[in-house]
């Protein structure tokens, strides 16, 4: 067999998944070229800060939340958007957003880390309506918040809840509108959601739960949010936090499998010398084989390391990804830390403390097996519960279900050796 050594790796995406993958290639001894393409004008930064301290502290400059690293020989091409990939020719098409120039780039190894983009509401959007995903979004919103606007937030998920907290800390008038019956209840369960509703109310955020949004009022500049029932919530600034969708437009027609994310194997491989990591990657869960996608910092980092290892590993020897990641969210005086992945129909129990005091550990179980633990203002319990959740996941991995085949791209049929992943 002729050795066909990997000479160059192209990384699409310069957020934490892309940067970590590049760092991991170097730390695993890869000496070839690495080029990273990013669609924002600046390199890797602390995206989680955009809904938190970067929004509330206007003394922070872009440079203050840039990630620093000391990895040799990474080439960054910024403000460049991937527009197409041709798998047969292994050619990536890019558009320089400053000049509009389109050019091609030959691909040897490819790491798909293009992330996600904020979902928008349908219809026309007057000025003063924001999504919050990019540095540009955050800078514009922050500027607008200086004028002490009345704020309406559409969607009480992760971003919406944090922005509500940030805006209240600026002393702003805040109304948060949510279609379901509680903030983050679809992820964390209704009991926790109702507790979080109390957290918002106690901190002065008005909640409109079970309220659909029909559109905005105001022609040039927004004046309010029109609810489905006809009522208008007056607002000078609106933040739409209704989730995000994986940035896979550039992969349409590429020959790679795309279905709410790019479909990967358990080792995050997609095809020959192509891997994915972060918000854009959808992979068969080690728990039950169903395809999942996770949009969190910790997951992006953990996946990037595995994706890099997979790219460098001889076929059939790659490490598979085990998804026990965590997220944190700071809302008002409450710190939320979730370890693992709860299902909507999980059984919930309060293992320690009390929900009413918002200082507790909530444990999620499915068929008796722990799936997740949520710490509310209990950071000192992180170690214990991470170990418990990890033990529960590694227990379930022993039962080892095959990936579901209905969504399975051809490349997944390669044998992936089960190996333990260190957390």
């Amino acid at each position: 067999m002729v050795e066909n050594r990997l000479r160059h790796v192209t990384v699409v995406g310069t957020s934490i998944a892309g940067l970590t993958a590049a760092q991991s290639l170097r730390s695993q001894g890869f000496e070839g070229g690495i080029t990273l393409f990013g669609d924002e004008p600046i390199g890797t930064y602390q995206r989680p800060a955009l809904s938190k301290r970067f929004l509330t502290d206007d003394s922070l400059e872009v440079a203050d939340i840039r990630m620093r690293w000391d990895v040799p020989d990474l080439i960054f091409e910024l403000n460049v958007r991937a527009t197409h990939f041709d798998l047969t020719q292994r050619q990536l098409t890019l558009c320089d957003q400053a000049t509009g120039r389109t050019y091609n780039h030959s691909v040897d190894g490819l790491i798909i880390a293009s992330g996600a983009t904020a979902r928008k509401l349908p219809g026309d959007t007057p000025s003063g309506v924001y999504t919050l995903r990019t540095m540009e979004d955050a800078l514009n919103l922050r500027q607008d918040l200086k004028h002490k606007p009345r704020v309406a937030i559409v969607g009480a998920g992760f971003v919406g809840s944090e922005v509500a907290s940030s805006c209240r800390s600026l002393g702003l008038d805040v109304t948060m509108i949510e279609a379901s019956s509680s903030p983050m209840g679809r992820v964390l369960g209704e009991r926790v959601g109702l507790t979080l509703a109390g957290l918002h109310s106690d901190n002065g955020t008005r909640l409109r739960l079970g309220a659909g949004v029909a559109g905005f009022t105001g022609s040039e500049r927004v004046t309010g949010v029109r609810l489905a029932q006809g009522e208008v919530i007056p607002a000078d600034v609106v933040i739409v936090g209704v989730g995000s969708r994986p940035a896979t437009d550039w992969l349409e027609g590429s020959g790679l499998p795309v279905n709410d994310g790019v479909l990967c194997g358990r080792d995050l491989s997609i095809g020959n010398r192509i891997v994915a990591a972060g918000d854009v990657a959808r992979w068969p869960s080690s728990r039950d084989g169903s395809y999942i996608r996770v949009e969190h910092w910790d997951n992006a980092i953990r996946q990037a390391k595995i994706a890099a290892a997979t790219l460098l590993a001889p076929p059939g020897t790659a490490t598979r990804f085990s998804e026990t990641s965590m997220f944190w969210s700071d809302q008002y005086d409450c710190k939320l830390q979730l370890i693992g992945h709860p299902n909507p129909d999980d059984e919930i129990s309060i293992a320690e403390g009390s929900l009413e005091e918002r200082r507790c550990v909530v444990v999620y179980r499915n068929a008796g097996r722990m799936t997740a633990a949520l710490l509310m203002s209990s950071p000192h319990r992180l170690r214990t519960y991470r170990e418990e959740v990890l033990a529960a996941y590694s227990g379930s991995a022993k039962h080892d279900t095959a990936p579901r085949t209905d969504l399975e791209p051809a490349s997944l049929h390669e044998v992936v050796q089960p190996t333990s992943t260190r957390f």
Partner: protein
Amino acid sequence: MKLRVDRNLCIATGMCAGFSPDALDLDAMGQLVLLTENPPASMRADLQQAVSACPVQALSLTEE
């Protein structure tokens, strides 16, 4: 090696403790606890991961 945390930056996300549980933990007040300030070389790989995983880059590891 010397492990340091910038307490003005640390927001106690717990990311670092996830990568290097032998060297880092959180207390009940959400303060990061360095279980060792002079970690042995055997912890280097984990600690490098912890340093790069910190979303506010509050951790540093230097050779001393």
